[in-house]
């Protein structure tokens, strides 16, 4: 049967969830360059340079 998480139905949604769900991907490509500079480089500078070294997974299919 269809299952609902009762806890989820009664508690207020976390403030971040709606933003994450609604903003999960661009609604359409934003052709304008962000005013505050290159968004890509800004994000790249936040990346932990050792992230891939630490990343370990099981083999899947």
């Amino acid at each position: 049967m269809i299952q609902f998480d009762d806890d989820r139905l009664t508690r207020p949604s976390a403030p971040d969830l709606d933003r994450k769900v609604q903003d999960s991907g661009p609604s359409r490509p934003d052709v304008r360059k962000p005013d505050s500079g290159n968004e890509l480089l800004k994000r790249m500078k936040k990346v932990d340079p050792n992230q891939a070294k630490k990343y370990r997974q099981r083999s899947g299919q």
Partner: protein
Amino acid sequence: MTSQISSDDNPSEESKSETPILGLSPILCGIETEYGFSIEGRGAEDQIDDAIQFVRSYAQPHFSGWNYAYESPRADLRGFKLDTLATDPVDAEFDAGKNHGQVHDIRSDKVLPNGARFYNDHGHPEYATPECWQLAELALHDKAGEIVLRRAAFELETQIEKPVTVYKNNTDFHGASYGTHENYLVPRNFGFQQIYDAVLPVLIARQVLTGAGKVGSEKGPGAIYQISARSDFFVEAANAETLFRRPIFNTRDECHADPQKWIRLHVISGDANMIPSCTSRKVGLVKLALHLLMLGRCPKWKIENPVQAFQDISRDESNKYRINLSSQNWTNAYELLESYFAEFDQCDDLHDSPAGGELCQLVSESRTLLKDLSGGSPNAAKHIDWLAKRKMLETYMEDSGTDWNDPSLQAFDLEYHNIDPDAGLHFALAQMGEIENYPPQDQCLDRLIQPHERNRAWARSIALSKFPDKIENVCWRTISIRNSQEEVVQIELAPDREYPLQLEDASNVENYIQWVNQ
């Protein structure tokens, strides 16, 4: 009491009189993606437990009760059944002495309202899209899967109070790979050798238009940057394995439909694509090969060493993409793909078929991209993941004054596949207009409610939304549902038909069963 009703038991007069021409009917397809994920303080040895919790944390409406009866992963298209499937020895060490429980507990299957399957597959949360006829629909459902994963990750973060990062990729850069598989329903009129001969050349060549790219190599000769994220993991041209000793052409014979009529071609050699048009192209090129096979128009290529050819193309920095042939001649990926396009040009019936429009678009766009690729045009980076990723890395190197020896490049590769739109590097490119033809987000969200094509996924979705309390179990092929006499009726959902719109008006299970069999 359980009775079984097949849609073939009561064919309508219309369906009796129609004999579809092989190769002109739309091909039903799906994509299953095993996602990678990372939780601070947890490792690969914890991954099965974590993946179970990940999937179970999904709090949106769903149905629990997958029917495993028709699964046959050890059956081989070549006419035999393997005793066992190979497993990764490193994973076997993780599992030593552990008992994670019964299969249904480990897998924790959820069937979503749109007919998709979300479950734990070998320690990876996996989203299997609803089956689709059209490439554009499939690409939207594939993107909708990212939303499902983000929602589950958010709930898991809330439960464990630690950040959870999810990656739609295929490698951990340390020798472990996990798959993005495509599935194509093919009439059993065609055997292994015919399908292999038709599809294998495309699987090798299509990476130049569909690869996700990878910094470095994990096996074999070293590489600075590869076109395919998966190429390091193929060791044979064809076999039924998926976890270890992987092949380019997978021979698993698990059709998820009537086995007398159908084969499910299970393609495991593709990459997980972030760019939706890349997903469409990846599937479209194989569909084109299958259509041409069924019409008796498929080009004939005999590749000398398929694994070598796949890996050579993946590592080729010259854009030449040479492929040695068994005849001691050679070709390249451009010519090989063009041979399929040229055959399509000659197939008027296929142009006029239901799939004709999307195949025309596929061929036209692919030709443009191949031309861009050979000429070094930057346009292709807006459509192909491996080029978008490479351009991203070059942007960083130019800005920071480093080169391909920069040890942080693999971290950027990984973060290209981060599915968080606020952090993922692919999404930064999309937001900057560096990716073309991005679908609106509301179209992806809409696919989580119900499929837009009236195929068996749509019929499944209708049952899940209308009669959730009456359903006993579900799989790709069947729905077991209780009627008003509380009898459990197993309905077989034929995969090759359009279901009547009136199913939406079914007010009880009897109506549904009657109409689904019309």
